[in-house]
């Protein structure tokens, strides 16, 4: 509409193989902007931590790229194509609090849900698929608990079940929302081992992570977020005191103020 914009808005050249390309994405919840202008290219075969304070928009980032939250602007591509066409290559592990734990399903049933798409409409879950699900559970050391109803599992075991569900999808990109929250040490080790194993298979994982202590130990790459992208890249370059101060040293005052103004325009 106006000439302020650069004359032609060709998106910058991204490597087609990048598992996740976010181009100028802005996200608003109920009009209130929670993420501003995020540009990001996920590297192939790396473990990436998404780090930031509470309310920085970490979960929103993941939910927005998966079309679970509408985007105000921006383009998101998985392996060079929109999400719809690449669903099979992306697996999502939601926050643990988001499901009804009293639901009458066993751990195996939950893992098998990751295969439903592959099984297809109206077909029952056959033995073959149950075995696949069982193998995934086994990889996380959960085979003994396959028949348990999910509320009878500990927090760490529940998390492992959800990881197994993602695992069974045989995806190339894993998006995990706080898998380390509220889990025991054994589960944390199991998750990290799994992530490393996935990495050796050339897969990529984006993990929302809370524990700053372990970022350098667990992850190759880091993405610092607080309402906007602060920095992203290899951990040793990006995970610096200076960047962390920017991330945790309070929100950009005006950015936040303008966000509030947009959420509640003006009193009429």
């Amino acid at each position, binding site marked *: 509409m106006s000439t302020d914009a650069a004359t032609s808005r060709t998106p910058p050249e991204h490597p087609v193989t990048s598992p996740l390309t976010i181009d100028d994405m802005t996200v608003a919840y109920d009009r209130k902007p929670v993420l501003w202008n995020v540009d990001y290219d996920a590297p192939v075969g790396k473990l990436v931590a998404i780090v930031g304070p509470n309310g920085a928009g970490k979960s929103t980032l993941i939910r927005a790229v998966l079309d679970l939250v509408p985007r105000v602007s921006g383009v998101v591509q998985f392996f060079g194509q929109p999400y*719809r066409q690449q*669903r099979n290559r992306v697996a999502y592990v939601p926050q643990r609090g988001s499901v009804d734990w009293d639901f*009458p*399903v066993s751990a195996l049933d939950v893992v098998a*849900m990751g295969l*439903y798409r592959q099984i297809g409409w109206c077909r029952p*879950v056959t033995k073959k698929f149950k075995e696949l699900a069982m193998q995934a559970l086994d990889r996380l050391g959960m085979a003994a608990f396959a028949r348990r109803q999910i509320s009878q599992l500990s927090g760490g075991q529940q998390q492992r079940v959800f990881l197994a569900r993602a695992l069974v999808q045989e995806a190339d990109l894993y998006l995990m929302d706080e898998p380390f929250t509220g889990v025991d040490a054994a589960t944390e080790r199991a998750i990290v081992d799994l992530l490393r194993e996935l990495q050796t298979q050339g897969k990529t994982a984006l993990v929302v992570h809370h524990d700053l202590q372990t970022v350098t130990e667990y992850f190759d790459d880091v993405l610092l977020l607080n309402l906007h992208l602060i920095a992203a890249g290899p951990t040793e370059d990006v995970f610096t005191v200076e960047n962390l101060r920017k991330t945790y040293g309070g929100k950009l005052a005006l950015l936040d103020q303008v966000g509030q103004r947009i959420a509640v325009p003006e009193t009429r």
Partner: protein
Amino acid sequence: MSSTGIRLLMALFIVIGTFRMTSAQEKNKIPPTRTTLSRPDFSLPEWDQLVRVVLLRDYNTRVVLVGTVLLGVCSGVIGTFLLLRGRAMAGDVISHSALPGLAIAFLVGEAIDPGAGRVTSTLLIGAVISSLIGMGCANLVRRFTKLKEETVLAIVLSLFFGFGAMLLSIVQQIPSAQLAGLQNYIFGKAASMVYDDVVLIGVSAGIVVLLALLFFKELVILCFDEDFAETQGWPTKRLDLLLMGLVVCVTVIGLQSAGLLLVVALMMTPSAAARFWTDRIGWLTLTSAILGGASCYLGVLLSALFPRMATGAVIVLMGSLFFFVSLLLGLRRGLFWKWWHAIQLRQRVERADLLRACYEAAESLSISQENSGQPRELIDVVITVPQLLAYRNWSERRWNRLLTKAVGHELIVSLPDGGYRLTQGAIAESRRIVRNHRLWEMYLIHYADVAPSHVDRGADWIEHVLAPDVVDELTRLLNEPRDVVNVPESPHPLQPEMTGGGREER
């Protein structure tokens, strides 16, 4: 799995037993004369009537029975999904909002062609449309206002019902309306079901159940984790619509043949009751269907025996009976089993506490006697109640009671002079218990910086829940031998006065 099977059998016996008893009572209750009854309006059935009903010799009873049972089964199936989707009240709202549709369909039908309004299909189409409008209104109100979900449901329910009842009060003034029996839609006419109704119910119930089974997997994932289903590319909106469509279908069919109250109850109660029996969704659906069918079956039989009892209401009460029986006896969350497990746990804890107290008393006695130059095996140490009193804060009466019980379990041997001696088996068992207790105490002292004088209290209840793998982990951490026979020394003095106050009555 086998323990589940046993429990299932036990529960089945209990249920069957109750039925047996009640039916036997019914038979016995038939009095020779009816004059003794103070309430002449409530007559018990005659013997031959009972036989006729139970053997289904009445054509009418058979028809009603088949119709309601089919309805019960299919609403049991659909109700399961509603319950899991957290929309148990949806059936209630849908059935209430069908009412204006019935009246309007009747009026429109009559206006176009006198007589057409009385045709069942016209009425059903009206009811379906009106239910859908009701759901639409609920969505509209939900979207555009900040009213809470319950309020939205209550508003739609009462407005549609009020509007429908108003229309009915008008329609009733039209002479031909009496023939359509619109009033029956509210309170039901399950008892006057006819063959055509049963065919209609059968066909639609078949279709509904078939669809539900066909899309079982998809509906489950919708109910369990909508976000995940969405990211997997399942059309969640359309699946939701399918579910609601099935609900509307069942509701309307049921409304026509059984009345509003019955439909609402059948949609909610069996699935809620089935939830107490199983943690598998397949079994849940099946149980819910069976309970729905069974409550209809019993309800119809009962109301055939007691003609003054309205069939619909009796079916509802039978469903509720199943619900409350399940609440009490259900295998998964029933009160009885919870209570049973609590008792068993208490007994196990009591036994372990007793053994540990005895062991520790014997241990310190043997040590002190060893010091005095008489080495003694634990098995030879004689302990008395006064000694034991110091080790656990139990009353003397309780000690005596528990000790007598332990003698019965062959944990200890009662000696003629009033003392007790541990048996070989009990020593092995108490070694394990004491070992767990002390391992945990040591862990608390070394890793949690708890003062030695306080660890006893902390370890007192932990010892009962330590799983073997945790014990292994503890032995590894504390560099203790993994040998179970090897009991580490207590990290704090075992003198009664040091620990006396620590172990409290639980």
